[in-house]
């Protein structure tokens, strides 16, 4: 009898371990936001609500529309920084997309080397969707 009970308990424990856990969405500041193929102009965060044979069958996706001024302001205020193809970009406050300041030199004469440094803003619009997907764009709070 004891042996059978031990087997039943072991089987129950094993079945508990193999059931995938459902992870709820974190608060916004703890979320990882990604650009996904199906959601142009948006940043997304997913969580799996149900599984079948270890594969997710029901995704819950939160979207953040970068065309919305309020959404952009909120993300900037929280301090989201994005990794686009290995480069660090911030979310632009004034337009839908990603911005980055870079020091550029337009003059190539060696004696102007220290005088020609200028700040240039690089801008990747959110509408450049395929590039952002290919570059594995990922944003998180700094």
């Amino acid at each position, binding site marked *: 009898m004891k042996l059978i009970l031990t087997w039943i308990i072991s089987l129950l424990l094993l079945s508990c371990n193999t059931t995938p856990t459902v992870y709820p969405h*974190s608060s916004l500041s703890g*979320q990882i936001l990604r650009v996904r193929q199906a959601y142009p102009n948006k940043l997304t*965060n*997913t969580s799996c609500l149900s599984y079948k044979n270890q594969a*997710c069958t029901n995704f819950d996706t939160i979207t953040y529309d970068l065309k919305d001024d309020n959404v952009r302001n909120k993300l900037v205020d929280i301090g989201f920084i994005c990794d686009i193809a290995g480069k660090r970009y911030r979310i632009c406050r004034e337009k839908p997309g990603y911005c980055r300041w870079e020091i550029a030199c337009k003059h190539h004469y060696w004696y102007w080397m220290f005088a020609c440094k200028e700040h240039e803003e690089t801008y990747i619009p959110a509408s450049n969707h395929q590039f952002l997907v290919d570059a594995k764009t990922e944003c*998180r709070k700094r």
Partner: protein
Amino acid sequence: MTELIASALALGNEIVKLINAKEATKYIDKMNNLKMKIYEEEKKGDFCNDARVEYLQGELRIILDTITQMVVQQLAGSK
């Protein structure tokens, strides 16, 4: 996984090896296991479960914090 976290983990691995051989294997195994889970999840691309990645990265941070505490204790003990 961000490169920064990967670098922190590599450093954590090395520190753990230096401070305590017995505890080291336990933490290295845990960290590598978590790294593999994150890698497998992120490999799913658009179907990646972000909430799971966030959770696993949180676990990694806890282990790294534990290692930091171990190092501090070890250093305090050696003085």
